[in-house]
């Protein structure tokens, strides 16, 4: 049996319950999305955008679906879909790629959604932060849905933290992984699908920071879709500090002139971790700019993949675009796949792309060791320096400072959830 069958059965069994727990705007498109998923199933590795991730295998285990409502702290800008201050029907599921199987499955199964709404010309002084905290006493699947709407002239900085509950987070106390109270000795697996749709109307500014800090038994399938109007500025920062398997998609549709987008990515993976980032910047109109920088440090037996496409339509003249993917393979077993792509139909554009995969600079290591710095420390310094370039790009200073510390701790192995837990090895 292929993996999709159990989700098809799940929907036929639980579809009614999901609808009961959900809201009208979500239910209105639910059945249609399910039909898309049912007809396509999970994408195989032959599907270009999924060639680096075995989706079928990731979804094969039987996870229980979580239908608990989100615990949302009331805020001026954060709403549950059912309590949205505006009609979100024109936006919901209209930015996302409806033909993407993961998005379709998420649309079919998501029972609750978070709306971040910033009214016209409103500029919240503080960042808007959402923490997703995974928890449960058994293997669980979550389907998260977020809709971001920035009205004309609005500005927002949004931080989305993907974390696990503190019981897994304790570095010293590994009882949670080892079969503590109510836990299976195997640890608890989480499967998350996430669809984020962002609509940035004319003259708006959006900075999104997504930070994943989960653990080795977490699988994450995240699809982010951003639509930009005129005179907009968007930055999306994807930071994978600790994970199990992550497949992150980020698509940006440039639909208004004089807009810019920056995509930054920072990936640190070791052990058997998998991180696959797939991005698309689609220039549909002239006079826009895009910048993309993704950096990976893969160590241990980790596998990283990056595929980024810049697509420039025929009439999208005067585009300036730069795409860079730089990777450091810190061990001989680590693997990195990289695929920068330009697809240009206009004839007056400036586009560049490049990618590198390198190993540790032996001469720098020797130089540092000659100064008395031990090899592990020298490697940590080099990895940190390599990643510093991406962290430097983060505009939000408190987050940037925090990430400098976290990245360094990560390279020192201090973010491993359990010091001597086999799951964290």
């Amino acid at each position, binding site marked *: 049996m292929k993996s999709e069958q159990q989700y098809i059965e799940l929907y036929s069994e639980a579809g009614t319950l999901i609808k009961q727990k959900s809201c009208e705007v979500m239910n209105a498109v639910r059945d249609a999305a399910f039909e898309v998923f049912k007809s396509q199933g999970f994408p195989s590795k032959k599907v270009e955008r999924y060639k680096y991730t075995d989706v079928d295998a990731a979804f094969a285990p039987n996870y229980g679906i979580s239908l608990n409502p989100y615990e949302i702290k009331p805020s001026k800008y954060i709403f549950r879909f059912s309590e949205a201050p505006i009609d979100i029907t024109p936006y919901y599921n209209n930015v996302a790629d409806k033909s993407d199987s993961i998005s379709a499955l998420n649309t079919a199964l998501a029972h609750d959604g978070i709306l971040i709404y910033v009214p016209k010309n409103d500029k919240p002084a503080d960042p808007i932060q959402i923490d997703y905290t995974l928890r449960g006493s058994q293997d669980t699947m979550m389907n998260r849905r977020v809709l971001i709407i920035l009205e004309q002239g609005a500005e927002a900085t949004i931080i989305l933290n993907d974390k696990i509950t503190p019981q897994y987070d304790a570095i010293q106390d590994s009882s949670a992984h080892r079969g503590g109270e109510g836990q299976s000795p195997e640890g608890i697996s989480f499967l998350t699908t996430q669809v984020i749709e962002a609509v940035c109307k004319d003259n708006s500014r959006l900075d999104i920071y997504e930070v994943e800090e989960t653990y080795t038994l977490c699988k994450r399938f995240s699809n982010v879709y951003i639509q930009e109007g005129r005179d907009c500025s968007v930055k999306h920062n994807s930071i994978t500090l600790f994970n199990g398997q992550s497949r992150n998609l980020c698509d940006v549709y440039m639909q208004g002139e004089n807009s810019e987008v920056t995509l930054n990515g920072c990936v640190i993976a070791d052990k058997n971790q998998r991180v696959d980032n797939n991005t698309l910047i689609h220039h549909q109109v002239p006079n826009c700019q895009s910048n993309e920088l993704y950096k990976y440090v893969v160590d241990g037996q980790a596998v990283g993949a990056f595929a980024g496409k810049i697509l420039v339509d025929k009439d999208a003249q005067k585009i300036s675009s730069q795409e860079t993917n730089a990777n450091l393979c810190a061990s001989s077993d680590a693997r990195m796949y990289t695929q920068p792509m330009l697809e240009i139909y206009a004839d007056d554009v400036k586009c560049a792309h490049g990618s590198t995969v390198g190993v540790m*600079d*032996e*001469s*720098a290591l*020797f*130089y*540092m*060791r*000659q*100064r*008395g*710095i*031990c*090899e592990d*420390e020298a490697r940590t*310094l*080099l990895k*940190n*320096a*390599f990643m*510093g*370039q991406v962290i430097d790009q983060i505009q939000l200073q408190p987050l940037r400072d925090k990430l400098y510390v976290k990245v360094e701790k990560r390279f020192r192995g201090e973010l491993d959830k359990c010091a001597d837990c086999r799951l964290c090895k």
Partner: protein
Amino acid sequence: MLEIKNLHATVGGKEILKGVNLTIKDGEIHALMGTNGAGKSTLSNVIVGNPAYEVTEGSIIFNGQDLLAMKTEERANAGIFMSFQQPVEIPGVSMTNFMRAAVNARRAAQGKEPLKSTDFLKVMREKRKLVEIDQKLMNRSVNEGFSGGEKKRNEIFQMAMLEPTFCILDETDSGLDVDALRIVAQGFNTLRTAETSAMVITHYQRLLDYIKPDIVHVLIDGKIVKTGGPDLAVKIENEGFDWIKAEL
């Protein structure tokens, strides 16, 4: 201090050192001269433990310790310092962080606590003056964007910070103008104590005008073929190596 016996070493499978014998006592300065490709840099790299070089035969004893059994960083922390012929650029690692890691590694090896941040910066300030190196270079990445002269001065600055007992100056004079040469050489002389020993590799007498060697060796084809006093360096400066080769 340092005793090298019958040292053979290869790099990339090619034998470069073919039986080097050399003894350097406490407080002595030895100059090592020789033709290009004779093995001078190989000898210094082997002493400091560059993993790219393989020792196939012989021994090196440093203050009673078997140096060849020690890791690169252990040798450094035992007091060996090499001023690199071509100092390495390390993008993204600031000089300050690099120096702090090195100084604290040295202190840890001596069983001392890490330096407090304020104390560390104070030491940095003092030592910088010795080689007249600009503060702004300390905020930059290690050797990145440094001029040739700044790189060499930076090597001596690091020596000042780490206070080694045995220094190797591997063509520290190459690429330096006369003023920079004087600053670097005087910096080294200021740092010297009665116990500090050094091996100075150079092609030219002018560095030895500042750093006066006790003994001068000539290395040709992987072996030390001639040893003499300071006069030997002067003679080589005037007459080249042909007369030594003719003697062989």
